[in-house]
């Protein structure tokens, strides 16, 4: 279950590759584990166990933390499914990973392996070929022009390999794309680049815009071939940045070239509210502009919008990965580290018959939590959200005027609203604040 994910561990990589090779020909059940990776009920069980047992070290999304990345193509202790299973059973105590063989049943452990296999991404068994071409324009491939070929055990396309002026380089291997969504290969600054992408032997049409061309992948496992001609590209253009993104290119999912891997190395910067409530104003995917994200140590997070003075999202889990928004030029949105309970256009807000336009005044930290203040029409409000435990968050409104409040409640999976201990199951609710102008609305999580 241990894999390379840091530079320090790269030395081990070549040893790991030898393990991988030996484990492959000793296959005695890997195929059945691979089959299990297509079994939805096994995957559900495996995912649940993984999140309970493995995620704290290997990250919820398997991208690695204290423990190695379990999704990419670099494996230290063998990538054969049977080897992964035995590693989970035995553990690596000297590296801090206990064995789980006596803790869980064989089917449970196999379900974890199946889940890990199902999340695999990028190349496997990647190889390359370099052809020396006669001129920048030469595209005729002959066996005489083949000057170098080999395997790439770290499974990233390395465009720095050629050492001739004019060349064609091919990368080919099995490739794992997301199974349940459309994804694309995305070439950064790709306009001058001559790239051909083949999936299962068929050339894929180039899409996107000229500067960032894209090629749509098949879901799940496929055979992928990348062909690049150096042409008249300048030296710094020849080290390609190739990344797999989601369909609308709003999320960069994973790198497939060595330079992309370097470029994305800063893409994981997790902000986790450990011990105190944190407030972050960042671009967040799925949350409208002008939102203030708040993470609580009770793993209930929300976003308050300063343009609408509404709570526009709530999610359970850790707070945010702000890496995509604070690395490079910061074009991409931060990612919530958990599951949305609700999100915009579902909103929690109060209205007093105004046009909905609020005047946000700011927030202040009091006893470690933010209190938001704003005006609707000329009426002054405050909102104090406090996660009282990991199953309940209270949103307490205060209103200066002695008015009824029109509550607009958002709904989603996994929680219910309570007002004065009474379950509220309608979207709109008119309620009176108490004599001090306070009203608390509680979200209770399942």
């Amino acid at each position, binding site marked *: 279950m241990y894999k390379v994910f840091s530079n320090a561990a790269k030395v081990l990589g070549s040893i790991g590759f030898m393990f991988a090779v030996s484990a492959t020909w000793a296959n005695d059940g890997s195929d059945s584990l691979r089959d299990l990776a297509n079994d939805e009920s096994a995957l559900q069980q495996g995912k649940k166990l993984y999140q309970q047992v493995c995620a704290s070290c290997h990250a919820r999304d398997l991208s690695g933390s204290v423990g190695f990345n379990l999704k990419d193509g670099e494996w230290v202790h063998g990538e054969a499914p049977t080897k992964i299973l035995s590693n989970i059973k035995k553990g690596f105590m000297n590296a801090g990973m206990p064995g789980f063989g006596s803790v869980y049943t064989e089917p449970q452990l196999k379900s974890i392996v199946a889940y890990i296999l199902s999340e695999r991404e990028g190349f496997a068994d990647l190889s390359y070929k370099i052809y020396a071409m006669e001129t920048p324009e030469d595209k005729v491939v002959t066996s005489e022009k083949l000057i170098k070929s080999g395997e790439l055990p770290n499974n990233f396309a390395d465009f720095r390999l050629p050492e001739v002026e004019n060349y064609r380089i091919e990368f080919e291997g099995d490739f794992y794309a997301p199974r349940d969504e459309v994804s694309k290969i995305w070439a950064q600054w790709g306009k001058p680049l001559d790239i051909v992408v083949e999936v299962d032997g068929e050339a894929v049409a180039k899409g996107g815009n000229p500067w960032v061309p894209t090629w749509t992948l098949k879901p799940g496992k496929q055979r992928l071939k990348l062909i690049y001609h150096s042409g008249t590209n300048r030296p710094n253009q020849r080290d390609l940045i190739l990344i797999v993104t989601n369909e609308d290119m709003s999320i960069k999912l994973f790198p497939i070239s060595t330079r992309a891997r370097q470029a994305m190395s800063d893409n994981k910067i997790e902000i986790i509210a450990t011990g105190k409530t*944190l*407030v*972050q*104003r*960042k*671009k967040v995917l799925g949350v409208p*502009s*002008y939102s*203030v994200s708040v993470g609580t140590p009770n793993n209930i997070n929300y976003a308050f919008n*300063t343009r609408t003075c509404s709570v526009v999202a709530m999610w359970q889990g850790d707070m945010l990965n702000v890496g995509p928004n*604070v*690395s*490079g*030029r*910061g*074009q991409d*949105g931060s990612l919530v580290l958990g599951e949305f309970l609700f999100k915009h256009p579902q909103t929690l807000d109060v209205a007093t018959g105004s046009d909905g336009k609020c005047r*946000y*005044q*700011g*927030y*202040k*930290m*009091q006893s470690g939590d933010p209190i938001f203040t704003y005006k609707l029409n000329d009426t002054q409000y405050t909102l104090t959200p406090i996660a009282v435990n990991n199953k309940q968050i209270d949103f307490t409104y205060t209103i200066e005027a002695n008015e009824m409040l029109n509550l607009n409640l958002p709904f989603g999976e996994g929680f219910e609203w309570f007002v004065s201990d009474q379950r509220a199951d309608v979207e709109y609710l008119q309620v009176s604040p108490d004599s001090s102008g306070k009203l608390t609305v509680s979200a209770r999580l399942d």
Partner: protein
Amino acid sequence: MIFYIRRFCAISLALTCFGHLSVSAQQAPEHKYKPDGYSIVTIETPKDVRFHATGLDTDKHGIVYVATRFGDVWRFENNEWTKFAEGLHEATGILIDDDGSVVVAHKPELTRLIDANEDGVADEYQYLSGGWDFHDNYHEFTFGPVKTGNGSYYGTLNLSHNDPNAFKMGAMGSSGGYRGFAFEVNAKGEFSPFAWGLRSPAGIGASPTGELFFTDNQGDWVPTSKLHLLKKGKFYGHPVSLIEVDGFTKESIQALSLDALEEMSETPVVWIPHGEVASSPGNPEWDTTAGSFGPFKNQIFIGDQTQSNIFRVLLDKVNGEYQGAVINFMNKFQSGNIRLDFDKKGQLWVGQTARGWGAKGGKPFGLQKVVWDGTNPFELLDIKLTKSGFSLSFTDELDASSVVKASLSAQQWGYKYSGNYGSPKIDLKSLDIASVTLQADGKTIDITLPLMAKQVIQIDFTGLRDKSGRSVSVDKVYYTLNQLISAQ
């Protein structure tokens, strides 16, 4: 004399080929330049912190405040860092206000930070203003604020890039909400658009007399980076923000000729030659240290994010209008210089970032300062237009024997305004220097040469020496000759 001339030619050829002309030779000097007596001090930033210092100010006690692109505000006092605030959205400006509160410009708003319980950490994040629209586009920066004597705050708003909904006539665009505008927030907190036609205006500054200036970065509709005097209700050349100006529509803007747009545009105070001096300049900062920083008092200093250098702006006023020159000051900083601030001791602090756009200095971020040890350097101090040429003053007395025509050369060019990304030098030609005269003060020379308006005049003075034989570290000055001195 003969000895001097030969020696000077050899030096100039080795450095930059003085007198050499090339339309595309927009290369930054590769050699290290710095005036005698000045040095760079690197400040250790907090450990394991992404310290992209894009907001920088010092208070009356000399305490340094830095706002970072990550969204923190840090305070540096007695060589110790403390985090004052966090969670802001790519802060790119900071101002210590008169009451000691801290105003930060970040993408969605101006926020006033208050340490109400006086524990050294901000606990109130008050909304000061945000009358513009931010559409979550990465390039929609908010720069500023600066404050003038009328109690108003001023800032500038970057256009967007790669925003599919934006109105574009080149690389950068606007989805509305005053992108490409400068803005004013008055003492009551009321927002109003102030001027428009800005592109990537990464630096705004207020002069000691309260005049506003801003820099804009080279790109579409900006042939080379520039410094402008910021005036209310004026248009500064990038057409897309006209979409929010009364009387314009998309169609009418797109139908405007280049000549019409140029005619509408304000003229820069100085053009900043691309690469040679700057590629992405930050804020103009006035040396108000009354000599604590050396001989360049009252001059403007600007850092450049790409070139990792600092250059000076030498203002001239001709027929009542500002124009002037730029000259490199120091290079070889560790990262991209985006923010400058003089503290009360006369030290020039330099906030740095290279993330996303790169910088010659290899480090991704940092903080340095320039200090002066009291040594009088030998550099060009100032340049003024005369009726027949220029008057160049130096910081030290010149060796009279080096004040000869062969010690100097000159060339001129213009720029082509268009939607293209930058402009080459247009009509580049060398100029004959007719005479060189040393004035009685021993520090100033007058040169005569043919003058033509709407040109940048580059004067090289490689061959000049001071009385102790020193040569200057920077031997080129670039004067933006918007207009000649009128006959009256």
